[in-house]
């Protein structure tokens, strides 16, 4: 009898369950698709001690399947600022991301990121009694626009526009000041030494491909080095790790020799491919250094764990060594083993300084302006943060 009454009471409570406050189901904005979101503001009467159960079913009809069960203190909107922003109420409100349902096997497929219209049901239980229930439906789809990354887009556009403007200025007036970097004088000295000793120069472009900025800078410096080498009638050896970099290096060497008026001295096989395996490349280059005993070694571009092995071997042959890399983890090894090291951006600056190309000079000037902006942001950000305001910090937040 008591059990029957309890069942009747529970059923009545369930039947009279109210809806969740501010409940909505929508496609997750700014993603690659596949996810819908159920969000709500709370339960009538407060969410203390409430447990939520989230279930999904195809909108076309079908069984409900439970996909999540969590306490009301979890899945707060504040965890997803990319979707809900930074409102204070987000600390009290809940949401739940759900995978959009896909067609059954054999049924016509959907484009990538799209899902079927998915029904989402959220039930709130307090002490085992359902106190609220809401349902909604949405279909997932990929989005072209990711609003949470709008700040990155704005910075990229501003920085890009500034760069183009400065490049245009450098084209009109190529006499752009770039401070002298000590390592550059050493380059000249190293090439001269190689000529006097009658030994070759070994020039490495690093282990990255042509899509890496440091490789582009390295190849650009190779162009200037090859001009000097051609005019001094010395020899530069360029063992390559990447076939595309090899092709570009050969072109650059050819241009360098031609620009120096010595196209006949250009030997295509002075730049050659070794292998695309890191340590066998090192073994081959180390062997080359021991056999050729170069007068100078240049390590420009991006390096990994092989940096110390290369520079130690080069050092043991008595060569003048000049490195330039933006690989932060390998810089210490080059600094310890080389005579001169171009640190990070100095590599790009060296490339611009030597080539005097408006494109590079404008980019370098643009980077300097970028640094001024960052310094200003740091100072301003520190001051604004001291007032307790968080809006400035949010300007630089890439929400997830």
């Amino acid at each position, binding site marked *: 009898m008591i059990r029957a009454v309890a069942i009747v009471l529970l059923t009545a409570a369930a039947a009279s369950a109210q809806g969740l406050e501010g409940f909505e189901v929508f496609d997750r904005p700014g993603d690659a698709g596949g996810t819908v979101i159920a969000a709500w503001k709370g339960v009538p009467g407060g969410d203390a001690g409430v447990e939520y159960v989230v279930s999904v079913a195809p909108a076309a009809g079908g069984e409900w399947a439970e996909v999540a069960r969590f306490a009301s203190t979890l899945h707060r909107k504040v965890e997803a600022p990319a979707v809900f922003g930074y409102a204070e109420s987000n600390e009290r409100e809940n949401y739940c991301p759900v995978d959009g349902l896909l067609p059954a096997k054999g049924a016509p497929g959907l484009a990538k990121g799209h899902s079927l219209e998915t029904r989402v049901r959220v039930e709130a239980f307090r002490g085992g009694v359902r106190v609220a229930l809401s349902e909604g439906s949405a279909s997932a789809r990929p989005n072209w626009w990711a609003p949470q990354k709008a700040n990155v887009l704005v910075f990229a556009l501003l920085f890009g526009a500034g760069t183009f403007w400065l490049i245009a200025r450098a084209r009109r007036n190529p006499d752009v000041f770039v401070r002298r970097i000590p390592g550059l004088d050493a380059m000249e000295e190293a090439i001269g030494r190689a000529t006097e000793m009658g030994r070759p120069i070994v020039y490495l472009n690093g282990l990255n*491909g*042509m899509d890496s900025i440091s490789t582009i800078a390295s190849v650009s410096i190779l162009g200037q080095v090859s001009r000097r080498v051609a005019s001094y009638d010395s020899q530069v050896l360029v063992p390559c790790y990447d076939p595309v970099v090899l092709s570009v290096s050969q072109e650059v060497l050819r241009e360098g020799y031609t620009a120096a008026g010595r196209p006949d001295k250009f030997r295509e096989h002075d730049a050659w491919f070794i292998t695309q395996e890191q340590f066998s490349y090192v073994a081959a280059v180390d062997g080359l250094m021991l056999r050729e005993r170069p007068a100078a070694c240049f390590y420009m571009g991006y390096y990994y764990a092989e940096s110390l092995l290369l520079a130690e071997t080069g050092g043991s042959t008595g060569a003048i060594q000049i490195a330039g890399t933006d690989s*932060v983890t390998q810089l210490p090894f080059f600094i310890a083993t080389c005579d001169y090291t171009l640190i990070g951006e100095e590599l790009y600056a060296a490339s611009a300084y030597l080539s005097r190309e408006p494109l590079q000079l404008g980019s370098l000037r643009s980077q300097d302006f970028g*640094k001024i902006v960052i310094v200003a942001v740091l100072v301003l950000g*520190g001051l*604004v*943060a001291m007032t307790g305001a968080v809006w400035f910090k949010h300007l*630089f937040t890439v929400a997830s």
Partner: protein
Amino acid sequence: MEIVGAWIAVGLTLFMFSFLYKDNPFYKVGENLYVGITIGYFVIQLWYKTWIDKVWDVLTGQAHDRFVILIPVLIGALLLTRFVPKIAWMSRWAFAFVIGYGAGLAIPATLTTSVVIQAQATAKPLVTMPDRSPGAAKATENAKAAYDKAKEGAAKEDEKIRAARYRYEQSRSVSEYTFLTAYRDFTTIVIFVGVFCVLFYFFFSIEHRGPVRAFSRVGILFLMIYFGASYGNTVMGRLSLLYGRVLDLKDYSRQMYGFATPVILVLMIAVLAALHVKNKGKDEGHAA
């Protein structure tokens, strides 16, 4: 078979280590073998993992859009035009594509991780103002109560007391200006000064004179401290790799592997000594 594997492993390891003596025939064998094997491996990898998996299987499959794969194949094939000087210029289209998509991928990612997020993380209050709100005071009170309770607990578990004290100190450092708050502010200021001065070091559009020179000097000091720490950290990692190799050599010294390490080592030393004597004789002959 295991013994053969051990002898090959020991032999090649010692061949590569013989580089520490000087360039010698053993190192040359190791070097050429290493380069040859990796090139062979990559050719096979490219054939099966790229050509068969990503091109051939797609083209011979049933997907209605399978012929789209021919576009990247064509772009890749343009690189081969370098072998024909008259149409070698076409390879630049492929290079342009590679560099274009590389930059397109790299710029937003670099801007996000290296500029926007870093700027956000560095822009902290240089001096923290205590949070005088009732909420913060209440949180500190609660944390203090929890700490007192933990101290009075019968079990007197150190770990629990430490955790409760940590929470209390953290909470107090928000509502009041404590030693912990001062320490945090000090750290923030050090990071701020470091970033500020390092940025000055990397200014190329102005001559480093006067205050700019002073800032850049401090900047390079910060960089060198970082490089020193990074160097030590990596050297420790490399030493552990060496330990691993030496332990393998020690393992392979046992009878079950046919004393691979000592036997190969003695043979190598004997051959190197013989070569040394032979070359010395030659050098003296040349000198005479």
